[in-house]
């Protein structure tokens, strides 16, 4: 049971970002959600439990940072002087960035438990938990370890096409089976507007995410289009929300953040 001294005692809301499918934009959405919430004046942490492919450190340009210890555990890595966004990822613990973490389930589970229990987050408005694709060790262990802290829920990310939606349907089942509330579904990479001629091409098809939300009876959080400025920002660890408010993905990302703020201010059921 969480005690007064628990490292998550000061965290007001926990939001998981899930998908059955890889490469749909979980880390992207986690990052942009954190940046948006920060711009609304919130203190945010991101816990990256993708042990094989940790993307979060680079998305904030802190991939060379180290993790230090304090009395209550590990100090998360602050993104800047402001200390309004803090991160934890296995990416910070590797000697060399190209080192593969070749672990079987039990070892992954042990580290995830440490990540949940031993990071001294302090006071946070939101802790976002970025996950790898699938419904396996990392997901089971993360949900189990977080259960005593009653997460606000999960955002599920998909791309429009059937191959992704098929996996996300399974992730919805995972949420149902583990008692995790689904805050909504995001349809990412939903269309590309050519910067030269403004023609919109549905490179990864269209509409699958919205249909799934309707079919499953969960909130549809909106379509985020493919946006080269967003991809570039993530590559360079820049603050897309601050620097590119007129870019095509901005309105959709802002809407997602607003929904999370609204969900968190409702009385808990």
């Amino acid at each position, binding site marked *: 049971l969480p005690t007064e001294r628990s490292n998550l005692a000061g965290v007001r809301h926990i939001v998981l970002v899930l998908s059955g499918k890889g490469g749909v934009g979980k880390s992207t959405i986690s990052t942009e959600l954190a940046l948006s919430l920060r711009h609304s004046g919130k203190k945010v942490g991101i816990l990256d439990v993708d042990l094989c492919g940790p993307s979060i450190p680079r998305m904030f340009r802190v991939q060379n940072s180290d993790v230090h210890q304090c009395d209550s555990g590990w100090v998360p890595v602050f993104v800047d002087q402001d200390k309004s966004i803090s991160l934890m990822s296995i990416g910070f*613990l590797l000697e060399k960035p190209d080192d593969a973490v070749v672990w*079987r389930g039990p*070892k992954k589970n042990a580290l995830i438990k440490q990540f949940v229990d031993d990071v001294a987050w302090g006071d946070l408005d939101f802790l976002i938990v970025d996950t790898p694709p699938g*419904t396996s060790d990392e997901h089971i262990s993360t949900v189990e370890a977080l259960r005593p802290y009653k997460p606000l829920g999960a955002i599920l990310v998909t791309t429009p096409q059937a*191959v992704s939606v098929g996996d996300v*349907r399974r992730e919805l089942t*995972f949420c149902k089976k583990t008692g995790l509330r689904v805050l909504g579904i995001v349809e990412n990479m939903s269309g590309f507007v*050519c910067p030269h001629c403004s023609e919109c091409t549905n490179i990864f098809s269209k509409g699958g995410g919205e249909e799934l939300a309707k079919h499953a009876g969960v909130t549809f959080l909106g379509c985020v289009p493919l946006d080269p400025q967003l991809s570039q920002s*993530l590559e360079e660890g820049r603050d897309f929300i601050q620097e590119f408010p007129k870019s095509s993905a901005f309105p959709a990302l802002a809407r997602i953040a607003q929904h999370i703020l609204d969900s968190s201010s409702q009385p808990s059921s």
Partner: protein
Amino acid sequence: RAPALGVSLAECPGTSSAHAGRAAACQGCPNQKLCAAGAAATNPAEAAELRERLRSVKHTVLVLSGKGGVGKSTFSALLAHGLATDETKQVALLDIDICGPSIPKMMGLEGEQVHQSGSGWSPVYVEENLGVMSVGFLLSSPDDAVIWRGPKKNGLIKQFLRDVDWGEIDYLIVDTPPGTSDEHLSIVQYLGAAHVDGAVIITTPQEVSLQDVRKEINFCRKVKLPVIGVVENMSGFICPKCRNESQIFPPTTGGAEMMCQNLNVSLLGKVPLDPQIG
């Protein structure tokens, strides 16, 4: 330098290794006692069974990536079809992505089920000379989730190799989930008996993918799996209206080309984003 970790960062020596449970890497692993007692090792009779089954496979190619969503399944499916155009060759496509099996949908085989015969499980044939196996065929509903920890996933992968009646195969293509974990360690271990030509590694041009793919290349080196080469997928998009090119996933650090040069592996080619594939 790193803080006191409950688990060692070093890699698992392998559940069948002589060092299982005893290596420095085993410190803090919940399975340490089991491995030290030999409980997790492959039983030699099983290993012999696998060797026998795989005797009739001439060539095996693994399709890997550290990164999710780069096009492993897409590439595996197209490669399998491509190889099967030679009707004299027998091709098998094995999908070991247990949580997110994409192959049935991509091959137009959704809703198909696996049948059992005296000689084992029958693969699902999409052509006479192209057979497919995936956990997707074992699920009764599209909402069924396979919420399994590593050991159970490993068990199914072993069954796929041991119990499926593939017959004589010229090419076995193995589609994998993203990462460097149970599925990857297991398939390399179980295929140990077969002749594995190597791995084709899929990436997209941006650094967010490449940073994971470098890890995958290092994984291959660690387990002595030859890297046939790297494919850069989603490499540019040509607008169908104005024919101008956009880099949706920009190669900010030189793309796969630079990575291949630095790591001394072959770049097999670049495939653009094509809405007809999506």
